[in-house]
């Protein structure tokens, strides 16, 4: 129902005129997609969300819904719902009145309104609570009401979530997230979900947008973000622990790490003068007792047995790296060993970015 386009949208907050809270960007959010905006606090995720919902007018650029310019429209005139970090309910009203509130403000008649509210209450499993005071409910139910106030408006095309599970108990988070997925499939709404929790983002979204310092650094499926981070930040931020980045040199057409020539998945030569490193996930490092192709000499600095897996800290030249080994009866080599970087699983990074 709505294709959301951002054309060269950027934002600076008043009083911080020299710093972009959101660097100018162009991006299309497909109708019916489930997107997660992932990044650390202060990276511009919420600013981006508020620009789409109309709570903030961007300093530059245009916001288009289905090709219609809505940049200057207030939030109530856009067909957008937003759910905030802390549940917003109208304390003095019942659950029913909370859900009916947006419709009453839009002049719906009582009979039609009742049908619609009950329909949405069924979807959210709030039917039994309709007569209760909203104030008396638990945080997860309040968050459902916040969502419900968005869903009752039949014209709503996209729901924006701003870290909606922050104050929800861990065991309920999972249930609520599953409910969101169900609603997404049932109602075919576009969902934009802001979070700094990678698990939340990766399990919820079809497309994850990773943001850092006001910039989108990569857009992709959870798999793409894990396997081929386009930016060192993505490598660090996704995965636990994050990707290893080992400083290397470029010698006679190949990356050289600790004196060993290393093949990577990068096909192009890196730009000259850039700071080079090889990125490899801890999950893909292999330890061996003897040298071999793509294997660099390492010293084992620490070993942590975590039951199902073993974390091994390696010294590669002057830098440190983690290897995550499955505990399938692996006999660890002695302190001096070799770490093999599978060529398909590692890549060359010039400054911050992956070399294609």
């Amino acid at each position, binding site marked *: 129902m709505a294709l959301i386009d951002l054309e060269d949208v950027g934002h600076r907050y008043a009083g911080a005129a020299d710093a972009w809270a959101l660097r100018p960007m162009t991006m299309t959010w497909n109708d019916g997609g489930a997107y997660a905006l992932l990044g650390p606090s202060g990276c511009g995720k919420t600013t981006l969300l*508020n620009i789409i*919902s109309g709570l903030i007018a961007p300093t530059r650029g245009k916001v288009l819904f289905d090709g219609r310019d809505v940049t200057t429209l*207030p939030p109530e005139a856009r067909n957008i719902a*937003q759910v905030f970090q802390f549940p917003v309910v109208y304390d003095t009203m019942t659950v029913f009145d909370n859900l009916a509130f947006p419709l009453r403000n839009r002049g719906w008649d009582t009979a039609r309104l009742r049908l619609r509210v009950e329909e949405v209450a069924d979807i959210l499993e709030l039917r039994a609570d309709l007569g209760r005071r909203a104030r008396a409910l638990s945080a997860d139910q309040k968050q459902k009401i916040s969502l419900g106030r968005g869903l009752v408006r039949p014209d709503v095309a996209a729901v924006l979530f701003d870290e909606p599970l922050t104050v929800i108990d861990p065991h309920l988070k999972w249930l609520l997230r599953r409910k969101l997925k169900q609603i997404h499939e049932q109602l075919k709404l576009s969902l934009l979900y802001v979070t700094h929790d990678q698990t939340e983002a990766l399990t919820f979204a079809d497309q994850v947008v990773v943001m850092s310092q006001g910039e989108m650094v990569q857009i992709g499926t959870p798999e793409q973000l894990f396997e081929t981070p386009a930016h060192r930040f993505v490598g660090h931020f996704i995965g636990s622990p994050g990707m290893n980045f080992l400083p290397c040199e470029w010698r006679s057409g190949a990356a050289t790490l600790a004196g060993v020539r290393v093949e990577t998945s990068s096909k192009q030569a890196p730009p000259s003068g850039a700071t080079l490193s090889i990125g490899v996930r801890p999950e893909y490092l292999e330890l061996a007792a003897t040298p071999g192709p793509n294997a660099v000499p390492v010293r084992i600095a620490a070993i942590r047995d975590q039951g199902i897996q073993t974390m091994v800290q390696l010294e590669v030249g002057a830098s440190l790296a983690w290897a995550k080994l499955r505990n399938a009866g692996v006999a660890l080599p002695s302190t001096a060993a070799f770490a093999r970087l599978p060529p398909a699983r590692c890549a060359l990074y010039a400054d911050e970015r992956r070399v294609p």
Partner: protein
Amino acid sequence: MSSARPVNQRAWWFVLPVLISVAFSALVPLMTIVNYSVQDILGPDQAVFVGMEWYQEILRDPDLHGALYRQLIFTAAVLAIEIPLGIALALALPERGWRASLALVLLAMPLLIPWNVVGTIWQIFARGDIGLLGYVLTQLGIDYNYSQHPTDAWVTVLVMDVWHWTPLVALLSYAALRAIPEPFYQAARIDGASRWAVFRHIELPKMRGVLTIALLLRLMDSFMIYTEPFVLTGGGPGTATTFLSQYLTQKAVGQFDLGPAAAFSLVYFLIILLLCFVLYNFMKEQR
């Protein structure tokens, strides 16, 4: 669970200092009053037990009825004006920046003035011959004289109290308003709420706790008002602005009727206690 807990009475020792200080600051003086209220003190060593006599006397006293009646009207008027006006002021104040600081300082100024000075300021301000307000009103052809017309005296005392105490309500309300998280307003915008709906369903409920305190403070303070009308009108003309405190002072200090004055003090105290109790429970009920 609680039945299995070992009983330990030693904790009373920790409460003891508070009990002693409360006893000396409140209970002992109060008991003195109770003592006076049931005796006729004839001299330093001469006292006669009279039972409920003083209570019966003051409860039948038409002067007291008059003062109580005026007091109730005054307090009701003060609350009816100051609470809505304070909320309106708080809503109109700038939200942040130097304008907010300036407005808050200006608003707080009446609160920093000693009460008898407030009375003196208005006493002069409202005078027809040299006071700015009184002079201007007289020049405009309005027959205004607070020392002669009961209505003028009433209006002046009321306006003075509003000037003096509305800032307190406004400051409390302002603090409550600033504590409302931004998403409540943002959600209301997205829900298409009108300005009135935002006030009715977000701001007012969030201010309820603070307004309860403001209401109780103003109820107690206005019910005990003494200094300002004493300086401004001296309770006059006649007894037009004689409220309960002033009546009490006249009895105790002016006529030295310690027995009836003590009896009345207790009744006065109970009235305030009762009003606060009723109001507090009413506000709690509404939540």
